[in-house]
């Protein structure tokens, strides 16, 4: 993994003095998830509509958190949860927004601001939609204004959804925790009452079987480790030529290695056969495998274009067809259904010079995810995508120094994310506590300035 020595320097006493004096970016050391640590350290302040906040407060208290409706001007604040679920006009935003603003100077490092509101697309009333879109705008702006590793994100509820639905609590916990360290300026949609909160939050995937493609190194290996840590048994998949590293990952996570080219016509069937043979079940598939073959479109040849499309999106479409045709990927009624998480990319959202093939494939992933959602929901399952921004990997370590240094700072957290940050978001989306969220592409980019 690439070393971000600037961030290390800023976080020394002398480094802080020098870089502040020069007006340079101030990347903070982000709070990251540890299973044995509290969800968040310090008071969580609930603002806005009382009915909804009573429901969320019960969850927060159940997690052992210090929940407040009011807080003294001298006290430090770990998180603010602002409820806008009943706003009907933009003018109604004022009280809660200004109350949030009054607390910003009291925030601890790696603090959280979380807005909760109803989906603007679900109303035809101009004033109501204007108010809800207003929450989106203020949340994104607030994410830019956060300091010291803090983030601001929103939970966007379906019009009819009961706020007591498990996936609302699941999203709230994810956003408060260190799992969302590199997620900022984003919105998690919760559309259904599906889902279940785990008995043991340290092992939300206990008893489940997950497949991770492209797992021999980098983000894929981090996903395998994270799913294993969360209690899943993991099948790691990669091409035969990556078998030595793949075996090392499999042995580290006490899983099984499946050497397989995902572009094989029967890749999905091979995965299903393996899961059936070794585990007798399959709950989670993470389509992580992907390649880049960068070239300006003017210089693009068919092998570069076609191989990227074949590996990054056509293979996923084919494997998903096999998965959805399989009884193994069906869950009994009344349980949490199968979950698919695909790797998209901010390149697929914003486009990127020299990456027309990659961007087409990754935008394709987002299209596939949103269009497949109804099929998965019919099985009480979900399909979502995660779009990483600049992540410190072997691949980005090979970028030229200046390009890498600029790319790192071009987001609200002023640093690159880690493979673990992507993995944490995937593990959350794969968990029963996120079963009410489907068809979403969630960015893990520190609110990257491109494609916002």
């Amino acid at each position, binding site marked *: 993994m690439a070393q971000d020595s600037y961030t290390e320097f800023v976080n020394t006493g002398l480094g802080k003095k020098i870089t502040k004096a020069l007006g340079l970016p101030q990347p903070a050391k982000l709070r990251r998830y540890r299973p044995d640590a509290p969800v968040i350290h310090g008071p969580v302040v609930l603002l806005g509509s009382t009915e909804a906040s009573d429901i969320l407060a019960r969850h927060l208290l159940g997690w052992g958190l210090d929940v407040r409706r009011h807080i003294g001007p001298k006290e430090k604040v770990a998180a603010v949860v602002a409820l806008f679920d009943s706003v009907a006009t933009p003018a109604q935003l004022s009280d809660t927004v200004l109350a949030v603003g009054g607390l910003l100077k009291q925030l601890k490092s790696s603090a959280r601001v979380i807005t909760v509101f109803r989906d603007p697309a679900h109303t035809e009333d101009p004033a109501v939609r204007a108010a809800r879109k207003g929450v989106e705008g203020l949340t994104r702006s607030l994410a830019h204004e956060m300091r010291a590793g803090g983030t601001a994100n929103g939970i966007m509820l379906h019009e009819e959804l009961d706020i007591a639905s498990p996936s609302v609590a699941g999203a709230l916990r994810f956003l408060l925790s260190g799992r969302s360290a590199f997620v900022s300026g984003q919105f998690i949609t919760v559309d259904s009452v599906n889902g279940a909160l785990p008995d043991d939050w340290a092992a939300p995937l206990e008893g489940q079987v997950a497949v991770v493609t492209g797992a021999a190194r980098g983000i894929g290996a981090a996903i395998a480790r994270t799913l294993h840590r969360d209690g899943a048994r993991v099948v790691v998949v990669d091409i*035969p030529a990556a078998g*030595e590293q793949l*075996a090392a990952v*499999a*042995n580290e996570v006490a899983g099984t290695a499946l050497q397989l080219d995902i572009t094989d016509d029967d890749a999905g069937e091979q995965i299903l056969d393996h899961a059936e043979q070794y585990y007798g079940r399959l709950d989670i598939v993470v389509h992580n495998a992907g390649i880049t073959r960068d070239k300006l479109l003017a210089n693009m040849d068919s092998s570069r274009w076609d191989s990227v499309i074949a590996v990054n999106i056509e293979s996923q479409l084919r494997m998903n067809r096999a998965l959805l045709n399989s009884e193994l990927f069906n869950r009994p009624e009344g349980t949490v259904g199968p979950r698919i998480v695909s790797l998209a990319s901010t390149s697929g959202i914003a486009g990127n010079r020299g990456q027309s093939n990659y961007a087409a494939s990754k935008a394709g992933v987002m299209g596939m995810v949103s269009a497949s959602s109804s099929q998965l929901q019919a099985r009480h399952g979900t399909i979502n995508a995660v779009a990483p921004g600049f992540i410190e990997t072997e691949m980005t370590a090979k970028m030229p120094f200046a390009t890498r240094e600029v790319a790192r700072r071009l987001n609200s957290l002023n640093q690159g994310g880690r493979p673990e940050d992507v993995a944490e978001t995937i593990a959350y989306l794969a968990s029963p506590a996120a079963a009410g969220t489907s068809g979403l592409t969630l960015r893990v980019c520190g609110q990257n300035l491109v494609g916002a």
Partner: protein
Amino acid sequence: MAETPRDAVIIGGNRIPFARAHGAYAKSSNQDMLTSALNGLIARYGLQGKQLGAVAGGAVLKHSKNFNLVRESALGTPLDPKTPAYDVQMACATGTEAIGSLANKIKLGQIDSAIGGGVDSISDAPIVVSDELRGILMEATRAKTAGQRLKALAKIRPGHLAPKAPGTGEPRTGLSMGEHMAVTANKWGITREEQDELAVASHRNLASAYESGFFNDLISPFTGLSADNNMRADSSIEKLAKLSPVFGKDLGGNATITAANSTPLTDGASAVLLGSEEWADAHDLPKLANFVDYEQGAVDFVDGAEGLLMAPTYAAARMLKRNNLTFEDFEYFEIHEAFASTVLAQMKAWESEDFCRDVLGLDKPLGSIDRSKLNVNGSSLAAGHPFAATGGRIVATLAKLLHGKPGKLGFISVCAAGGQGITAIIEGR
């Protein structure tokens, strides 16, 4: 077939790609390679933390420091360290002997699970000092006074300092294996053309097996090498015909053995997972085939009564008789290609009425082997032959070939230095 208390099931295998000596694995030791083959097997079958009945295997060429090679290798894997491991050595039949004896323990109920295999490195061969120098050094060690020690050490002469590398020559005849084989090939009238044809078939079969993905769950790469680097997919009879013989030169025009129809010196490692049916089921593991039976053979090659590499011919006759089988009962034949002529001479012997009656004591010849059933996914001429690793390669390949063909049989023949060899029977399931 012979009744046994319970089946020994072949669950799967893993090997690292085989590499021509002093090439891709020049910097790797036997222990590095065997550990990697074991790690790949453990990863494929999820054996982390499991306590197995035994791990057995060995190397033909090994350093004296590797007295516990297999145990040391197993300790470098995520297997439960309470898994016993031990070394076996029977020249080129080391891997097959390890697997066969482990299968017997499983059949007898002594153990429920095991890994058998082997490794060899020509690139990391143990080079030792001469016997003379060693004698002097030992004398110096035994010396009680400085004077005695000096007196001993003063005996060292420049000639003593030349290091000794292990050779493939037979200690009792001084002849290399190739020279022995040249005599046998000539005796059985094996032509150059037949040998070259067999070599080409081996390369093409191996290449098409790779192409079809057959090895995806049998091989995991090592130090960046992902396929056997001796393999020549474009091998042809015409190209091979251009080579000059390298063995049997004193036979003049009858010399037929070239570098291409002999196996190259090779580095590599392999491992095969075995278990009882109950153990495989309890761990949700696949059951590719049963290891049915095996037989060791040895011949008197020293005075030239029989060819050095012909022992499997004898073992096969006894093994088939014991199991009441004929060649017609077999779906596939895996005959280790030490030399192309080894395979051809064994097959000629089994076809020969005189040899089968007079030497093997059979009523009729064992018969001919259909070439379309022989080494169908390539063998040692193409893959290479890291001595002790060959058995694991063959057993895993044949077990996978027979998987999904319940009751169909596969035949294995492996010749070995010292005039020995092993044959074995595998049954698909």
